[in-house]
């Protein structure tokens, strides 16, 4: 049995028939073909699949596709506008906030919501807010710096 589902991903309407058990992350990766969202674990620990769903950073491996009916979704591919990197993306580049890059899309989108909630986060807040995202390469040092860089530059832009 398949169910129809319709949502907006990065501004484009997506409409498919899917199995009810299909996880949103697999829908995004396999059905829609946006492979920037990654799967790093089976238990919602790693956060590599983090996306924005109706403005909330969620782990797309814990959402069934059918639950996203009517949702407005942003994946890492939709963050840069008109070819301009978002300040968080720029911050990760400037501060060497990534090495293998696998956790990076999830980190950036988790940081996106973090900076909406706390535009000027303390180091402690940044670390606490990243509790749901794992990185095995950077030891988090430069991820914290990247988010601090973004915070400063987003404030400057306003």
């Amino acid at each position, binding site marked *: 049995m398949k169910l129809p589902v319709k949502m907006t991903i990065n501004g484009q309407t997506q409409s498919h028939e899917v199995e009810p058990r299909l996880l949103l992350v697999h829908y995004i*990766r396999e059905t829609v073909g946006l492979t920037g969202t990654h799967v790093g674990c089976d238990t919602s620990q790693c956060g590599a699949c983090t996306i924005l769903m109706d403005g909330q950073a969620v782990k797309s491996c814990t959402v069934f596709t059918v639950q996203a009916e009517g949702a407005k979704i942003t994946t890492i591919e939709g963050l840069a506008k008109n070819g301009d990197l978002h300040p968080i993306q720029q911050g990760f580049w400037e501060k060497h906030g990534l090495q293998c890059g696998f956790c990076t*899309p999830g980190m950036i989108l988790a940081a996106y919501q973090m900076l909406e909630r706390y535009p000027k986060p303390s180091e402690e807040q940044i670390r606490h807010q990243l509790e749901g995202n794992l990185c095995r390469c950077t*030891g988090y040092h430069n991820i914290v710096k990247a988010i601090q860089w973004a915070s400063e530059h987003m404030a400057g832009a306003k």
Partner: protein
Amino acid sequence: MATDTRLFGKSIKRREDPRFITGRGSYTDDLKLPGMTYAAFVRSPHAHAKIRKIDLAAAKAHPGVVAIFTGKDLTGVNSLPCGWLLPELKVPPHPPLATDAVRYVGDPVAVVIAESQDAALDAAEKVSVDWDVRPAVTATSKAAEKGAAQIHEVAPANVAFKWQIGDAAAVDAAFKGAAVVVKKRIVNQRLVANAMEPRACVARFDQATGDLTLWVTSQNPHVHRLLMTAFVLGIPEHKVRVIAPDVGGGFGSKIFLYNEETVCSWATRQIKRPIRWTSTRREAFQTDAHGRDHVTDAELALSRDGKILGLRVKTLANLGAYLSTFAPAVPTYLYGTLLNGVYEMGAIHCDVTGVFTNTTPVDAYRGAGRPEAAYLLERMIEAGAAALGTDVTEIRKKNFIPKFEHGYQTKVALTYDSGNYAAAFDKLLGMLDYRKIRSEQEAARKQGKLVGVGFSTYIEACSIAPSKVVGQLGAQAGLYESGIVRVHPTGKVTVFTGSHSHGQGHETTFSQLVADELGVPMDDVEVVHGDTGAIAFGMGTYGSRSASVGGTALHMSINKIKEKGKKIAAHLLEASPGDMEYVNGQFQVKGFPGKAVPFGQVALTAYVPHKYPEGLEPGLEETSFYDPSNFCFPFGAHACVVEVDRDTGHVKLLRYVAVDDVGNVINPMIVDGMVHGGIAQGVGQALWEGAVYEDGSGQLVTGTMMDYALPKADMLPMYETERTVTPTPVNPLGIKGAGETGTIAATPAVVNAVVDALRPLGVDHIETMPLTPERVWKTIQAAKAGR
């Protein structure tokens, strides 16, 4: 070239980042091919069992199933090979799919291939195996005991090898003359690498050409191809192309040839359709090669004034259920040979027994043997200082090997390249403000707080490795690296390296190196890696070897390019090639920048050779293979300050300070990043990480990221890192290697700090890591009870 214009040594932003930060990386699981099928493996739920029967009927009837294969179907497929053969090593069969017995939880017995991933997984659940469950042994210390379950016929008492190094008689004599002898049991627990990208492969057989292409999460695609074609599948090497695209971290776990890519490469030839397999994290925990897992009894002999007279080490090393690709090298030549550390040692003897258990195979994990050696030595040094009542910094200073520039012969076979160990340590003490830290600690203790300071120094053997030497030690491979420099007619440059980036940033570092040496813009240099179809050959990336070995191969090719370019330019200028030099991107008559031919014009002339030296081949491309004459030996000193919560046993990191000496550095930003990540993994081992098997059932209890504690952002501080620079004389770039330093140094620094914090309670050692709140709390309670 003026120093300030050099690209070598500059923190240049990474050129690979734009694709990763926009979600445009291309990892193996991102690949989708027409006609793709999907594989799921049926695995043993038991640690040890005979296979009575496998019933495939229900699975075969499942909608969407394309094919199912068991071990018996894999005719003509050989064992997965072991690439490092110690004398009298017991090498048991390691079939890609188990045929008669399984020996660890996760051992694969069948593969289901279907039209969709879901269909493959659903059908795999319908495969019914009749198991004859046998007793299992998982604990390192129990494997060779009488009555333990026997795992392989070829290995009585589960012993794979017995190995030793050093001078037992000299050690005995040293202990007789010792004023103080310290004995400790030191357990270096089992770890799981946990690269964020799970292993994956896509295998495609092209019926029309007979070519097989394998995309695989590999740190060394040529090694994968060689092992698979020459040893396991018996198919022609030149008809196989292995591509390691963007790879999401490795830390050693993606060096090895595994069951799954081998089975998929075989199966695609049967079904004539591409197959994709991607590990779940649960499978990763069960089947990615694990690391460490030593149980050691160590004894240190000291003179009254704190000189190290002798070190005696007996280690049991758990190898898991089968020999992974390089498993025997890790607890032997990458461990025992490092026990000299950075100290003048009176005598050393190390005895290692490698044992099989019903656990996931163990192989190299970041540092591989060297962290085990450093941990042991640095724990023993601080225990020795405690026994003598000496300051932990003084005992180290007293024993450091003095500064040397060309070779130091250790007591365990290695000859160090260059070192200035006291300088790194002094710099660390300065950053830490050691006296102040100790007085703060004293004040905190008076308030009842448990604050501790711990140190480590380390030596690493990396830039792996001189082929002749490793060949004598049992390696079945050479460990050189290749580098091709291809100058295009327009003066643009493509370089091909046999090393592989899975996060290290080769595309940036190597383009920086090449642009620097050729005096061309970085944007004019493209770096190609990870594809056997493009690159001459390659041994890949591990053992901190890419910049030192792979970089030197490129350097050699660049020199050849310059030599050829001089001939071409000299001809154009009607000068003698011997009078030419290459400066600032042009070939010029020595000392006459006005009499010059730019690089681009030489490149064009090489491909449009109308006015060209007699007898010189057209084209401008050079290939080099660099085989190092020795290992390189980075070193450093790390320190950690912790506070332990007396009531909960929770350890808080207050400061982490590191001084590393990795020789010359191409891109400091990238090297710092690797140090940070290494520290996090080393702290992880000290405080949180550890693979646990249940005794008896042999189940992997820490089988997901819910049960195995990976370090998170809020568990770690900012790291204070600095460097000293002692170039190596081994290679012309002076680069030692930087990928593993943090992992090696951090674990002992943290554990030493925790022990130091608990010292007022009478604690002078904690046998087993990780130092979880529970373990620390129990240690505190035992100390209070006077146990």
